[in-house]
């Protein structure tokens, strides 16, 4: 065997090894969470709030943080959607081709995407002080909305950009204004992509802990008002995991399993959506 093919085979071996390593690591992470979490999973986890002495290992569940996370992230996603849809429509329908401003906005949103969530947390906290808010559902919602806005906007932008120009021209030729074209043609055409973008943003928001440490607070009761603190899944996991009591730690594993399942199902749904949910699309 000559030197060239020896080198090729060597690197090919390394490539296969590193691919296998990544797959192995992923399965290890998932397996660890499943093996550790499954024995501690029970109905009470989903149906009860923490009772007294819960943090000493007595009964109770984490309904407060499951609901809290869903409310908080749901609210933030709606908020971010209401902001990002107009922005993307402006970028793609109203802005002129090759507009400097559109380029600048896209660039800014990309950079915003890269900002760590802890910085959003610090920023959110500062805004809270300015607005006179306490740690609350509302403050957490606003912070997470800020965090996922760039993700949603840029993902949506990528799909709306794919809307064929002839389709828009056809709409203009029939006398539709840009406003009508935007909402009746462009949005409808890119609906599956838009839903995927919303789901991606939701998945990112619900898994994030760092931005919520100082903004959402923590509580054992169910979320009832926008202005009271709220428990969230990632923080529940984080706090319970640092407990020395095995039963409480076990619940952290179970909560981690629940969170992972929520996020994985969201990513699977969004994958299916891009494939199946394309009825109104003109190709």
């Amino acid at each position, binding site marked *: 065997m000559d030197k*060239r*093919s020896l*080198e*090729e085979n060597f*690197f*090919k071996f*390394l*490539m296969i090894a*590193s*691919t296998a390593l*990544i797959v192995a690591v*992923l399965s290890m*992470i*998932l397996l*660890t*969470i499943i093996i550790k979490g499954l024995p501690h999973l029970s109905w009470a986890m989903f149906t009860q709030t923490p009772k007294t002495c819960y943090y000493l290992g007595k009964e109770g569940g984490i309904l407060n943080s499951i609901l809290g996370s869903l409310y908080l992230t749901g609210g933030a996603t709606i908020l971010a959607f209401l*902001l990002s849809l*107009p922005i993307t*429509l*402006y*970028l793609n329908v*109203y802005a002129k081709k090759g507009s400097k401003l559109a380029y600048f*906005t896209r*660039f*800014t*949103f*990309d*950079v915003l*995407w*890269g*900002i*760590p*969530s*802890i*910085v959003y*947390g*610090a*920023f959110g*906290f*500062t805004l809270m002080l300015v607005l006179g808010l306490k740690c609350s559902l509302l403050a957490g919602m606003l912070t997470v909305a800020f965090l996922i806005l760039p993700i949603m906007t840029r993902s949506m932008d*990528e799909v709306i*950009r794919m809307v064929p120009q002839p389709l828009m021209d056809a709409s203009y030729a029939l006398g539709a*204004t*840009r406003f*009508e074209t*935007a909402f009746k043609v462009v949005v409808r055409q890119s609906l599956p992509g838009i839903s995927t973008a919303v789901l991606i943003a939701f998945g990112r928001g619900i*898994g*994030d*802990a*760092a931005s919520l*440490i*100082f903004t959402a607070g923590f509580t054992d009761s169910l979320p009832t008002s926008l202005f009271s603190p709220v428990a969230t899944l*990632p923080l529940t996991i*984080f706090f319970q*995991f640092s407990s020395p009591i095995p039963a409480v730690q076990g619940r952290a594993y179970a909560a*981690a399993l629940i*969170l*992972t399942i929520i*996020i994985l199902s969201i*990513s699977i749904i969004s994958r299916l959506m891009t494939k199946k949910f394309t009825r109104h699309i003109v190709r």
Partner: protein
Amino acid sequence: MTRFFQQFLNFEKIRILKDRFAEKSLFVFMLIFGLALFLIILVLFLRTHPIHTMMTLPNLLFSTVWKPSKGLFGFLPFIAGSLWVTGVAMAIAIPICLLTSLYLVEYAPAKLRELISPLIDILAGIPSVVYGIWGVLAIVPFIKNYLAPLFGISSTGYSIAAGGIVLAIMVFPVIIHISVEILKAVPKDMKDASLALGATKWQTIKHVVMKRAMPGIVAAIVLALSRAFGETIAVLMVVGNVARIPKSLFDPAYPLPALIANNYGEMLSIPMYDSALLFAALLLLLVVLYFNIISRMILSGSKWSSYYYG
């Protein structure tokens, strides 16, 4: 007939008015959020002002004394911690990710590729707390029981190495996702030309594909670097959090994001503490911003611009 015509005209007017109104309001909307970045920087900067009246910038950045209760805020241990952890993570992630992306694009059968790409997405979706838990359960004991003794060092396992390994895994999807897109964009003609000249597949990859894809791959790495630099919860759980300049891989460290997350609770009780922590946030933001701008500029200057999902 004229009445009908007038009504029609009115209707037209409303539609056009609506359109104009939408244009103006959407424009304002976009401008506000386009400027959000500057707003964040400005707010953080204004809030860090008190600390600058007390300590000079070089003093803040290069002093190693961290005693908030005495009003001494030296950020060097934290900056060093961040650099170490990020450096280790990148040293692990870069070769593995490059080899994997090359394999997926150039060698792997199509079926395998379709199988692996959703797996990478899953890896990207796992929340950082879960990475942290896994790190504590798997990586920390591994370092304590196997890796550190291998070098003859005793370590608790909560160390830079642990933080680096967990971080490396967390940035795998970022690098792989972008570099796969970039490797795919290398024109087939170029590869064919090289193969036709008698080069082996690996030589083609080494001399043609890699050369062509290099800027994009650099951008992917820089992006991953900035992601790693700002990661908080997972690192905080495995890195040990001791405010000293680390001397070896198996020493604990205290990166900047962990500093902010751990101390925000008590910061309002000590004077200047909040200002110091926001300074850490600002520092983090500026470093990440710098890396991001570099990488986005590389990516958006090329024809891969539509591919840069994080």
